[in-house]
């Protein structure tokens, strides 16, 4: 029989040993990512592996938590249940909304003002702007993207046009020439549909020179005459080509190999840098410079000198209640820093938000990709407001109402302000 003393001694040795291993063991940082695509997933894992190698005392573990950009149900549940992850992938334009909702830990509380200032300098201003709210920074910017006009060179040649349209008026005449119908009046091809793909309200509002928000007065400015004008211009396509005919034609559009641009059902489309890899993959025979080209989004003639585009992208944040916020902060600095962003942007053909990476040869890649990299400096960003998702949905509703002829552009824009401004005011109080 063991004596009581011996047993107690044995147990205390065990306890001491286990606490020692705890002290010397690794800190596990959990990272929820919603990027489930094969390339994205592999690239994020590479960043994590690299970080783990450089930081032997921290172990970052990625969990794929699928979900759309604006849906944080799972995160909310996890925070409320006290099992929040340490790092979360946030669509940057919703960062302010998450901040106000109390979902995120402000990064200012994890470090000094000096370091924040240093970080700020490294990033492109628009990306930092999106990451900030109420004088604090809530996430670190990760990648970005830009939008431009893709056009089919073969279609243009066919109707005797030599180069891409340089402004809105030219675009309109191009579309007239490029559009083809069959005997029964159905489209065989339509030159361009303004609201297709990335032809969002923001795209055209900015292209026409409008502004959606005035940070000084903290008021939405959707009734900006130039935004109203951009809606009017979109409506002119619905009128000219027939909304019902366009709708039934565009509902035949597919994706991947059935993408309307690849199928030749449209000649021009506004979409982003990511479309390059899509074209390579689903239309390997289409060659840049021969079959298609990329140019700036057309603007009204008086504004056409200055290119326009807008950028979105993701960011990394630390949810409220994260157990290892300090280690998580180390990780997001690494992943969103030059090393992490370079791995990601080179492998996935996304664009960086670290200013110095815009000059990096590997990041720039081939010429057609470098075009998008260079666009970043003209990029606008959606107003970083805590009502970003609502504003987006309301603008989409307004756009739909206008092109379907249910509201005049002026009234539709007024309605957006009427619905979103009170929500914003409530949060600004």
């Amino acid at each position: 029989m063991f004596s009581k003393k011996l047993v107690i001694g044995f147990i205390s040795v065990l306890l001491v040993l286990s606490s020692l291993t705890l002290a010397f063991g690794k800190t596990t940082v959990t990272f929820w990512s919603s990027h489930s695509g094969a390339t994205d997933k592999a690239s994020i894992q590479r960043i994590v592996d690299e970080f783990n190698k450089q930081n032997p005392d921290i172990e970052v573990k990625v969990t794929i938590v699928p979900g759309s950009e604006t849906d944080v149900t799972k995160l909310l549940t996890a925070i409320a249940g006290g099992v929040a992850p340490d790092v979360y992938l946030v669509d940057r334009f919703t960062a302010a909304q998450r901040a106000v909702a109390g979902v995120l830990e402000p990064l200012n509380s994890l470090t000094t003002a000096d370091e924040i200032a240093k970080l700020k300098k490294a990033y492109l201003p628009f990306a930092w702007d999106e990451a900030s709210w109420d004088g604090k920074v809530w996430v670190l910017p990760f990648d970005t993207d830009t939008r431009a006009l893709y056009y089919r060179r073969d279609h243009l040649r066919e109707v005797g046009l030599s180069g891409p349209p340089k402004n809105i008026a030219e675009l309109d005449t191009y579309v007239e020439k490029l559009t083809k119908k069959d005997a029964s009046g159905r489209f065989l091809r339509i030159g361009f549909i303004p609201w297709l793909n990335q032809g969002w309200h923001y795209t055209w509002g900015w292209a026409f020179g409008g502004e959606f928000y005035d940070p000084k007065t903290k008021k939405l400015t959707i009734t900006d005459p130039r935004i109203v004008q951009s809606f009017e211009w979109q409506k002119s396509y619905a009128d000219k080509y027939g909304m019902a005919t366009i709708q039934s034609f565009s509902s035949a559009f597919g994706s991947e190999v059935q993408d309307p641009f690849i199928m030749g059902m449209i000649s021009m489309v506004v979409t982003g840098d990511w479309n390059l890899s899509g074209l390579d993959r689903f239309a390997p025979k289409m060659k840049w410079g021969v079959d298609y080209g990329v140019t700036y989004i057309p603007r009204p003639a008086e504004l056409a000198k200055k290119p326009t585009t807008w950028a979105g992208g993701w960011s990394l944040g630390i949810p409220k209640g994260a157990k290892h916020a300090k280690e998580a902060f180390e990780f997001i600095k690494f992943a969103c820093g030059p090393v992490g962003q370079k791995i990601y942007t080179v492998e996935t053909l996304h664009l960086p938000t670290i200013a110095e990476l815009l000059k990096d040869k590997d990041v720039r890649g081939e010429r057609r990709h470098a075009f998008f990299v260079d666009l970043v400096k003209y990029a606008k960003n959606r107003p970083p407001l805590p009502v970003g998702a609502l504003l987006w949905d309301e603008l989409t509703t307004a756009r739909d109402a206008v092109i379907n002829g249910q509201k005049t552009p002026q009234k539709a824009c007024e309605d957006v302000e009427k619905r979103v401004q009170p929500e914003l005011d409530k949060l600004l109080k």
Partner: protein
Amino acid sequence: MAVKAHTSRRNTLYGLLFAFPWIIGFVAFTAYPILASLYYSFTEYVGIGTPKWVGSGNFNALFHDELFWTSLYNTVYYVGLAVPIGFVVGLALALLLNVDIKEIGLYRTFIYLPFVMPAVVVGFLWLWMLNPYYGLLNLFLGTVFHIQGPGWFSDPKWAKPAFVMLAQWGAGGSAVIFLSAIKDVPRELLESAEIDGAGWWTKFSKVILPMISPVILYHIITALFGGFQIFTTAYIATNGGPANSTLFYVLYLYRNAFQYSKMGYASAMAWILFIIVLIITLIIFRTSARWIFYRGG
């Protein structure tokens, strides 16, 4: 006497004990959330943190919310068409399935099969079927009737009717319930009706319909519940568009709760919907005494 009381008390205790796992589940996952949502409906709440009491603020805001009325209108429009049409289609199918042929079992299976398909799959499937260019329905309309079919999901005028049509995909489910009720109609009643010279229509309207009326009541009420809660297929096929023509009530509720972080507002919406459905159900129950025939009742 004492022994009896003792046994019955013990039986109650055992009964409760056996039901205990369910009671825990019910309290934790149904009763508590329902009561909590009542509280949240009077607050501003983002999902975490402390809710802020705003009294009837959410309800006042809702009544002035244009989209709330749009979503309510869309839903009532949908229920108003989908429930009666679903009833007629289900009953018609049940009558068709009530014939005596050898392979009837096979047909019953085929008719029931679509009902077991998940709503997400149904949503995607109908996106294809109703495609204006190469969808089956417009192909049929074009080749047989030489009509150019509408844009269905992409046309604000036709999107709601498209969902009514889509709802009939699951009519096999109610058909099977109607069928079992029809099978339950006593043979001797039908036979004596026949002897009295009743044709098929008289037999159907004077014997079968009254005899299955309790099942009809059940069907209409569950169909109402389902109709008011239409979400999955709309979320998949149109996500509220075009121009909010298919922004159904629960879809708008979902957006408020999980996309705009307005849990309080969404809870208020849930309670309004509950009250609407409750009132309609009560009206149906009250008036049902007039048209329902309970056997032996």
